């Protein structure tokens, strides 16, 4: 008897999940500007380490990964080689936003970039404006934004290469 109660429970759970999925697909996405999944990512403009200016909305039409980091953060250090590999193997644009106000000196950033051989853009958040805009608390924090500028995934803490690829494939 217990066996059949559990079996019915599992079937009911699956039915609920499928219905939830179908209803979820019918609902139009809430394309307000915000920080939740389904929201349009807030726009910002920053200068990169190399002196270029990046505007998030300029990257519409391509997937974007926003990563908030600092040189003193151990998980950020661990994540960087995987982000570089992710950058090399996909067409995603990585904007690794450095929380410059938390660095001991700004010189630490180019040293770090050279040490890890990073080739993606490093926008410098020198006034903490973008970190405030995205309400960053723990770092690293990452957002994956689709070709329409909509947030499809975000996470606190580091991601490894497999997890990055998994979320990237969902954007396709």
């Amino acid at each position: 008897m217990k066996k059949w109660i559990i079996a019915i429970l599992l079937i009911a759970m699956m039915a609920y999940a499928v219905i939830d999925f179908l209803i979820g697909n019918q609902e139009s996405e809430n394309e307000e500007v915000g920080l939740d999944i389904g929201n349009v990512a807030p726009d910002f403009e920053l200068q990169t380490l190399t002196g270029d200016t990046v505007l998030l909305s300029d990257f519409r039409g391509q997937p974007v990964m926003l990563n908030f980091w600092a040189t003193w953060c151990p998980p950020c250090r661990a994540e960087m080689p995987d982000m570089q590999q992710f950058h090399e193997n996909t067409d995603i644009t990585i904007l690794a936003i450095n929380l410059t106000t938390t660095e001991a000196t700004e010189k630490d950033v180019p040293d770090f970039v050279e040490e890890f051989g990073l080739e993606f853009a490093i926008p410098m958040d020198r006034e903490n404006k973008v970190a405030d805009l995205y309400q960053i608390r723990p770092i690293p924090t990452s957002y994956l934004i689709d070709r329409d500028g909509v947030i499809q995934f975000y996470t606190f803490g580091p991601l490894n290469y497999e997890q990055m690829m998994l979320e990237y494939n969902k954007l396709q």
Partner: protein
Amino acid sequence: MPQAFMLGSLVIKTELIMIIASFVIGCILFYFLSPFDKKQTRQLLDTASNILFTLIISLWIGKVLWNIDVFLSDPMAVLTYPSNTMALYLALILTIGYSWWKWIRTFRSYQGHLYVLITIFLLASFLHSFMEQIFFQTSWQYLVGLLILLSYLIACSGKKAPGVLANTMLIGWGLLQMIINAPVFQFAPSLIFYILIVVLGILQKYLHYSNGGRQF
């Protein structure tokens, strides 16, 4: 559902809570589904929880071994980093070796433990997949595949030898993953891994039947 909860400076990922909850509920459900008597069920669950705990420790060891150069220069960087699938492979080898030496030792005992672990794993995978679907709208195909496997397992539990059922589940899950290739909790094993699982299931079934198909 937020991706993580903050307790002061501590970040607790929702994914981690979901995985722990799935395995705990999986163990509880196994208690009610078990074809063994209560004493043996408790013993098997005790050993299964020890093996799962060993797997967690082995994942940490695997993560450190896989990133040994980074670990030597910056231990914290590796310890806070999520384990990848290579760490999982290392952890599985370590766990199987240690469990065989510490708790299992005989093929008969191995088949019984395999049944418990497979049942808990499938139940935990189903529950985890359900929560992922509800909270994060992921894929429901894996959920359907797991339900089919679990339905067969529940229907045949007590009617077929646990070793036979465990190997059927290994083959079924391996084939399901060869088609769907859904992430297994936070890991993404390769096709070769699933092929090995299917081959292992077939070989063990063959061994069982060539041994006269004795019930445990």
